[in-house]
């Protein structure tokens, strides 16, 4: 009995740590899909791009992947702002975001993946950092640093964004975009500019999520596809656009996946997120903390 209790408690810990990381992966989509109503299914592709940049700089220069990702934030921000501009001009302004906008992001997802395959091949890549490998022990509890560091970094990212969204003018304007664009205009803020900034931020978070991903597991270009379902499952389950909801949903999914992997085998894990997504859509589309 003692052994299975150990197994149980470690499955919960692994799930929570995994969930923290999932939260970082989802935050970008929570902003773009949840707040801005832009169905950016290409988000996981940008995360993988972040992973590869972390991989290149880490193997060439040897800087810590998380530091690299922070240095990459402005680059990803401008990439995101640029993509939003194209999206706005081509689809949103003409009211064609449903069919063509979705296909546009699907095309981006696909092109990014194939380009990475052409440049780097389908080999798994990984990074080096002092915290990959050792783990902390607390009695029977096991905290692998490889999971703990990304979880802490993810929660820090969340805290920073939550503060930004609640206490700055731009941050509050971003929340307002979802609620009342006319009121926002009357406050002297252009909704398009605010959305561009917000989308830039959402893509910038992919740089961090990508670095965390490659710390947790080796990465190859098609890994991103597994995350599409996870990301949207968490986003919908958390109640679109709610940051605290996203963290709770991410932890929940992390724990469910960790249990599935421990008791049924890891090959079933990808189906869990999708099952959760389908069930949520069918029975509680507003999510746990829905508006």
């Amino acid at each position: 009995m003692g052994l299975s209790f150990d197994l149980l408690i470690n499955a919960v810990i692994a799930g929570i740590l995994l969930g923290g990381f999932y939260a970082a992966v989802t935050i970008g989509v929570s902003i773009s899909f949840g707040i801005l109503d832009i169905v950016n299914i290409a988000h996981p592709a940008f995360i993988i791009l972040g992973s590869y940049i972390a991989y290149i700089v880490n193997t060439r220069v040897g800087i810590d992947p998380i530091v690299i990702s922070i240095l990459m934030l402005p680059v990803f921000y401008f990439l995101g702002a640029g993509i939003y501009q194209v999206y706005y001009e081509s689809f949103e302004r003409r009211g064609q975001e449903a069919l063509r906008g979705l296909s546009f992001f699907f095309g981006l997802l696909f092109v990014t993946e194939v380009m990475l395959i052409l440049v780097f091949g389908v080999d798994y890549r990984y990074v080096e950092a002092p915290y990959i490998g050792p783990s902390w022990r607390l009695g029977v509890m096991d905290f692998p640093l490889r999971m703990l560091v990304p979880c802490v970094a993810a929660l820090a990212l969340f805290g920073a964004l939550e503060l930004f969204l609640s206490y700055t003018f731009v941050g509050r304007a971003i929340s307002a975009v979802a609620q009342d664009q006319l009121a926002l205009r009357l406050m002297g803020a252009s909704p398009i500019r605010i959305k561009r900034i917000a989308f830039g931020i959402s893509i910038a978070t992919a740089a961090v999520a990508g670095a965390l991903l490659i710390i947790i597991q080796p990465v190859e270009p098609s890994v991103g596809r597994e995350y599409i379902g996870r990301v949207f499952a968490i986003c919908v389950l958390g109640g679109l656009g709610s940051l605290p909801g996203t963290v709770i949903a991410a932890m929940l999914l992390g724990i469910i996946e960790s249990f599935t992997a421990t008791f049924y085998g890891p090959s079933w894990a990808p189906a869990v997120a999708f099952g959760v997504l389908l069930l949520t859509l069918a029975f509680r589309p507003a999510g746990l903390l829905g508006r």
Partner: protein
Amino acid sequence: MRTRVFLLISIAVAVVVFFGARMVNNDYVFFAGYTVLQFIVLATAWNILGGYTGYVNFGSAAFFALGAYATVFLHKFYPLPIPLLIVIGGVVSGIVGFGMGYLTLRLRGAFFAIATLALAVVLQTLVVNWDYVGGSRGAYIIRPNEIAVIGPYVQYLFLLMLALVVIALTVARGIERSQLGYGFATIRDDELAAEASGVPTLRLKLVATTISGALMGMAGAPFPYYIGYLQPSSAFGLEYAVNSIAMPMIGGTTSWVGPLIGAVLLGSLQQIATVTISSAVNLLIVGLLLVAFVIIAPNGIIGLVQGWTRGRAK
């Protein structure tokens, strides 16, 4: 033109294509041609939902693979004739399409799109963990070399796919000109207004998902016989999802001609690119074309041609 006349004409064209291909007397023509025909069916099926009602299905590969795996499953019991397998594949995929639609179509369109992405991964995980149909190792299907009357087996498969193309195009064109098609168009243009004027939008969307899913399953059913060795990664390949979106988008989504043009152009281009360059590069080309077309030519090649002829008339 009446639907019956259209059917007769397309059968005539199909017969010409088949005997034309036989005149070349090269098995490769049938192998490559089968793939192009398969894409015509997939693109047309996708367009019945995507182009006519405006709901994006990213899970074409899932419906296709369902048809293919239904065949593998039944093949283990007793090797049935392929036309029967096509019908079964269609029924299975149609039912799954209906179920998916029922769960998600009452919500916003984006949720349906995301759920279809999800469906592909769930089904792939199921198949990978299901040893009876081969699991992750894949399943062999040994096909006969020859068949009575027609001769080489690949020609028989080609002929079946040609028949499916005729069926798919006739269905698509029939829908376009029927009350059903007008109902679909109202959903695409303004679903709220349609709902308010009494159009049974949910029922129509379910009809579209079911037909579209069934046709994709029918396209997948003969696939194990064509490829001989079916792996989950080849049946659920991303290229099916991408191509069945890219082809209608590039050809034009508003009429049955668009997916046909898109599939013939892109399908042939890919057959050439796969042989001459590499299959990764040809997928890149498809992706880039898709992005370029949705930005620059929102109504596809048909839209470009229409704009051009209208410009000349002025």
